[in-house]
C-alpha cells in the first residue's frame, strides 16, 4: 500500500487536491481565453489564393486550406471565438431567466404552479425544433441564435434553483427574518441570493458546452448564423461538398477543435462544482 498513485508523482506531487483543481480550472480557462482573444483580434477576411487551394495539412497551413485557398487554421480559430462569444451570451441570458423564474416560483402557490407548468412545457419540446423556430422568428444571425439557445436552456437550472429556493424558504432563519418584519424582497435579496449564487455560477458554466454545440448544429442546418461568417457550423456544412473528393481535413480539424473547446468548458464546470460543493465530489 505504500506505493503512491500516479497523480501524486512527478511535477505536481507537492500540490493538494484543492490546488490541483484550481490549477486545472486556471489552465483550462487560460487556453479558452487565448483562443477567444486570438479569434477576436484576427481579421477573418482572408484573401483568396487559388494557387494554394485544397491543400492537405502542411507546415505552412497546419489545418490545410479550403477550395478558395484560405488557411483553415485561422478560420477555425475565428469560428471558435465566435462560438465562445455566442456561448457566453446565451448562457448568461439563460441563467438570468432561470434565476428570475426561480424567485417568481417562490412568491406563492399559484406562481409556483405556473413556473412548473412552463418548465414542463419547454422540457417537452425537442431542443432542435425550439432552437430553429426561435432563431427563424428572430431573424437568424448572432442575435437570433443567442436568444434561441438562451430560451431553450434555462429549464434544468430553473428546476435546480426552484428546489433550492423552496428549501431555503422553509428554513428557520427565513421564518425568523419575517418575524423581524423584513419584506419578501429583502429576504430574497439578502438571505436567498447569496446561498444560490454558487449554483447559478456552476449552472451558467455547464450550459456553455450545450450552447456551443447547439449553435454549431443549427448553423450547420442553415438556421443560424449567416453563411459569410466563419462559424464552425458554416465551415462544417461547407465541407460536406468536398468530403467526397477526399478533403477530410476541412471537417476533421474544425470538428475536433470544437469538441476540445466543449470539453474544456465541461472540465471547468465540473471542477468548479467540486470546489463549491465538496460533498458531491466523490459521486
Amino acid at each position, binding site marked *: 500500500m505504500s506505493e503512491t498513485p500516479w497523480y501524486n508523482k512527478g511535477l505536481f506531487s507537492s500540490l493538494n487536491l484543492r490546488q490541483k483543481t484550481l490549477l486545472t480550472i486556471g489552465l483550462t480557462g487560460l487556453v479558452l481565453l487565448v483562443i477567444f482573444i486570438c479569434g477576436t483580434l484576427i481579421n477573418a477576411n482572408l484573401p483568396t489564393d487559388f494557387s494554394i487551394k485544397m491543400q492537405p495539412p502542411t507546415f505552412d497551413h497546419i489545418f490545410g486550406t479550403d477550395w478558395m485557398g484560405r488557411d483553415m487554421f485561422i478560420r477555425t480559430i475565428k469560428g471558435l471565438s465566435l462560438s465562445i462569444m455566442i456561448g457566453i451570451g446565451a448562457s448568461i441570458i439563460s441563467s438570468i431567466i432561470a434565476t428570475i423564474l426561480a424567485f417568481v416560483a417562490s412568491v406563492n402557490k399559484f406562481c409556483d404552479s405556473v413556473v412548473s407548468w412552463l418548465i414542463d412545457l419547454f422540457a417537452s419540446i425537442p431542443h432542435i425544433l425550439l432552437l430553429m423556430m426561435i432563431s427563424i422568428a428572430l431573424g437568424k444571425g448572432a442575435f437570433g441564435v443567442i436568444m434561441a439557445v438562451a430560451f431553450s436552456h434555462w429549464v434544468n437550472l430553473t428546476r435546480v434553483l426552484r428546489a433550492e429556493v423552496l428549501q431555503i424558504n422553509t*428554513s*428557520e*432563519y427565513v*421564518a*425568523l427574518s419575517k*418575524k*423581524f*418584519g423584513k419584506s419578501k424582497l429583502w429576504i430574497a435579496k439578502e438571505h436567498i441570493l*447569496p*446561498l444560490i449564487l454558487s449554483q447559478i455560477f456552476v449552472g451558467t458554466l455547464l450550459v456553455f458546452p450545450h450552447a456551443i454545440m447547439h449553435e454549431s448544429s443549427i448553423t450547420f442546418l442553415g438556421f443560424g448564423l449567416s453563411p459569410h461568417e466563419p462559424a464552425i457550423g458554416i465551415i462544417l456544412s461547407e465541407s460536406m461538398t468536398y468530403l467526397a473528393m477526399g478533403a477530410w481535413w476541412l471537417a476533421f480539424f474544425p470538428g475536433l477543435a470544437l469538441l476540445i473547446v466543449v470539453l474544456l468548458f465541461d472540465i471547468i464546470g465540473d471542477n468548479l462544482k467540486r470546489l463549491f460543493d465538496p460533498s458531491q465530489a466523490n459521486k
Partner: protein
Amino acid sequence: MNLKANNITFSYSKKRQILKDVSLSINNNEIIGLIGDSGSGKSTLCKILSGYITNYTGEVTMDNKAIPDKDFYPVQLIYQHPEKTMNPKWKMEKVLNESWTPTQELKDTFGLKDTWLTRWPNELSGGELQRFSILRALNPKTKFIIADEISTMLDAVTQVQIWEALIKHCKANNIGILAVSHDEELLEVICDDILHFDEINNL
C-alpha cells in the same frame, strides 16, 4: 401589558390532537415557567404564541387586541438550536444587526466578544451562538419573549450567566418571559410562577 392565549386548539393531522382549549396569560413584568413531557406540544404552543403557526383555532391577543403581523412581531421566539436560525453565509455582525443594533453595554453583559462579529456561524460554539440569538430577540419593540429550551445545551455556568443577563434586561425593560424547559429546578429558581403543561392542556 398582557399576552393572552384563549382556548387554543390545534392538531398537525386529523388523527391526533395536540392542543385542546389551552389558555394562559402572561404579564410583562413576570416570568412564567412551562414544564411538560417531550412531545406533549410545548414547542407547538410556543410557535402559536409567537406567530409561526397561524392555522389554529382560538385566539392570541396582546392587551385584548390581535397582534399585527406585518411589522416587527412583538412576541419573539428564541429557538433551542441557534445554529439553525442563522444564515450560514452571513457573518455574525450581519446576523446580529438583522434585528437591531444593541449597545456595547448590552453586548458586554451577555459576554459577546467583538472578535466573534467577523466570524461565520459555524466557527462559533452553540453557547456563543445562543447569546447572539437572545440578543437579537431583545429588540426595543419586543414585548414578550418565548424561550423554548434556550439553555438546554449549555453548561451550568453559562446557563446562569445567560439567564441572569436576560432576566435583568427584561425586568428593566418590562418584557415578559415564557420559559419552557424540562428542568424543574431551573424554573423554580428563575420563574415567578410555574405552569404544568398537562394541567393547562385539556386533552
